[in-house]
């Protein structure tokens, strides 16, 4: 019996751990991911594996350079989440080197240059995505219409290898825009939203994710399911997702009512792009979002608002990644200004008045 008396209590600890938290998030992502890998076929699977492997290698290299133990760090599961989310944010048929460049920036720059797990200011996966989006806009905005595995249109093994590792897919032949990108382009040509919406996927197709888009963002019901699972497991709370989605929906609804020719409805805003993936899995990243509930509400509101503004007024059809990164930069300030009220004190920190004396 070797008794230890080195610290203060408590001398019991809950079952939670970093590893358990991370793997719960991965489990929550799994259904939407599997569905979308099926939807976009073998090239998507290859790209997913390349991204995961590249991120893991970057993590191991960075930790080895800084003198840590790579085995333990890889075991905590944090880099698996980065790699996974990064893969989900890429066009499913993007070439391998896009994924590798994104991984290097995500893990080495966004995470380890800031000091590693828990120290980064910006969401690593979103940094990786934005770097390749601004560097390789052609590859990053070329999407394909879903061609599910085991269906006639789905590319075979050789063709898939060429798509991911070879010369890429012939952009002119099968490349298409995401719904948001399509509307943006039409709008710039002077076609009102009301008209371009006619060639938009039906709301039903939007719901089941059967439309062009990034690898993991289209299957809204499955992402929602994963998000609800995380809430049930108390990994995330409702504050960020609800405030982000509500803001996005309200902005869409208000402006499409005022000017339907220039604005998509709240429902389209919600169901397209990375709205749900961003709300439940990206904006909720612990490290880069505020720690208090009130701060999280403000953060979610900011992400929703910025997403809508970027989608509407900026050059990019999709705004979640930019919005998240911009709000990440505000997180330290939100943390300073949004704290719970201390028990027995006023919001300003003064002791509550004693009954009777005012």
């Amino acid at each position, binding site marked *: 019996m070797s008794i230890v*008396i080195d610290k203060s209590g408590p*001398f019991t600890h809950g079952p939670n751990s970093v590893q358990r938290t991370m793997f719960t998030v991965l489990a929550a992502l799994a259904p939407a991911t599997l569905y979308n890998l099926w939807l976009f076929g073998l090239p998507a699977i290859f790209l997913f594996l390349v991204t995961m492997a590249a991120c893991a290698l970057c993590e191991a290299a960075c930790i080895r350079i800084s003198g840590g133990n790579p085995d333990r760090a890889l075991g905590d599961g944090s880099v698996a989440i980065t790699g996974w989310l990064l893969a989900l944010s890429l066009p499913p048929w993007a070439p391998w080197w896009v994924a590798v460049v994104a991984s290097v920036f995500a893990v080495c720059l966004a995470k380890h240059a800031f000091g590693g797990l828990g120290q980064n200011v910006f969401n690593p996966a979103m940094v990786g995505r934005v770097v390749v989006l601004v560097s390789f806009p052609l590859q990053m905005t070329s999407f394909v219409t879903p061609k599910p595995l085991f269906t006639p249109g789905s590319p075979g093994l050789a063709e898939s290898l060429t798509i991911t590792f070879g010369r890429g897919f012939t952009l002119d032949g099968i490349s298409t825009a995401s719904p948001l990108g399509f509307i943006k382009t039409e709008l710039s040509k002077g076609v009102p939203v009301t008209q371009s919406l006619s060639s938009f996927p039906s709301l039903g197709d939007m719901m089941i994710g059967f439309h062009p888009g990034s690898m993991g963002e289209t299957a809204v019901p499955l992402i929602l399911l994963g998000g609800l699972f995380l809430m049930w497991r108390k990994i995330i709370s409702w504050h960020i997702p609800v405030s982000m989605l509500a803001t996005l929906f309200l902005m869409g609804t208000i402006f499409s009512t005022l000017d339907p020719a220039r604005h998509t409805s709240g429902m389209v805003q919600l169901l397209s792009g990375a709205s749900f993936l961003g709300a439940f899995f990206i904006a909720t990243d612990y490290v880069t979002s505020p720690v208090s509930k009130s701060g999280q509400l403000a953060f979610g509101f900011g992400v929703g608002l910025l997403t809508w503004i970027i989608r509407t007024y900026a050059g990019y059809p999709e705004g979640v990644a930019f919005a998240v990164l911009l709000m990440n930069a505000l997180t330290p300030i939100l943390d300073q200004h949004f704290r*719970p009220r201390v028990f027995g004190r006023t919001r300003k920190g003064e002791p509550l008045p004693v009954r009777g004396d005012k």
Partner: protein
Amino acid sequence: MKLFPILGGIHPEYRKELTSEKAIVALPLPKTLYLPLQQHMGAPANTTVNVGDTVKKGQLLAKAQGAISAALHAPTSGTIAAITEMTAPHPSGLPQLTIVLDSDGKDEWAEPMPVIADPFAASANEIKARVAEAGIVGMGGATFPSAVKLGLGNQHKLEILLLNGAECEPYLTCDDRVMREFAEQVVDGARIMAHALGAPKVIIAVEDNKPQAVDSLKAEAAKTPNVDVVGVPVQYPMGAERHLTQAVTGRETPARKLTADVGVVVHNVATARAVHQAVRLGRPLLSRVVTVSGGAVAEPKNIEVPLGTRVSELLDFCGGVSAAAKRIISGGPMMGQPLPSLDVAVVKGTSGILALTQAETNEHAPSPCIRCGSCVTYCPCGLVPVEMASYIRNDKLDLAAKIGVQDCVSCGSCSYICPSHIPLVHFFNYAKGKIAALDRERRKTEQTKSLVEAHNARLERQAQAKREAAAKAKAAKEAAEAAAAAQAQTNSAGGANA
């Protein structure tokens, strides 16, 4: 009865089933008892016996000294074998003056204190004096001298005596058993205390996971008006004084104030029982109920233990401790303290002795903070532990103080829930100790400074007086000389004239 929600809080695994159905058993009298003079908050007691004295059960061994202190009595009859420094039942392991009492095995009572026949006709001071005389301290673990707390009615208008039977710490069932088995004594003691406090109402709050305790107290309370028994939600730290007050009355105690400032005084149920025994039976506090539990204990039990019994003897009575023991804790696993050795004594505040295995403590090396915010969500005091810890790590104690580290009650909810297993409470206790030490230092410096200033001022005044005296003397001398010279001149002139 309407209840009010409290902030945050956690649901640690309860593990009370190990002992909750074990009726209180008495420990056979140990051969030797070790009685530290400090078993309470405040100044240590002052010995009134000498080595070699024979004492009877209940005889005073040490009396209270100072405003906050408590008397100590002989738990059995025997001889004072030594009064010596011994390891205190505190994680520091520092030595403390201890009376060693060799039992003579006869357990003979001294002349008992007179019974107060009708305590409700007695004055508040009489009750207070008796409680002080009996050496009763807060038995929930805080060990604040009870008589001092019973005097709160003098300065505050009190409405409620809130009797704390929450017992929210995992493992501990000593209060549960006391409430079940001695409900009558608990309710009676509570009524006596309320009388002394001048509080018109008694509310006994018990966590909902102790239905039998609630039932037996309710049956007892039904016999008298003004005593209510209420089940409160199972939510750690419900037993924290301010939180229990909030949950039951909705009143939030202002920071740096007492619950008495919102009209409520909180006492533990076991304290009420001790008050009953002191007032109705004339019996000082000689023993207490201790829960001995944990995965490394062969037969967990609830035991009525004479004060001064060594922990090792108590554990032996429970079949011993297995090699799997990782930590030996006095108190509960959330707020209890690790014991430096098994040779230390059971004291008035020892609610539990736990021998925990690695699986039970679930301790792991800390990993980096991932800012999950759990510590913020679950803090019952509305604090931001993640931020406080980072300030303390960077030696910015003033910033940690500014965001409320001194408002932390060290309940351990944040550490318990932290996925990175960061010992947050450890940081906060360190900071609180350091801030208090710095404050003392600052006050001392200021005091020294003002003393030095006063000293300098005095020297200056003396020098000034000296200078003035010298100047006066000089002026007088000059005047005298001038007068003499004038006189001489006059004389010589006169002489010349003459």
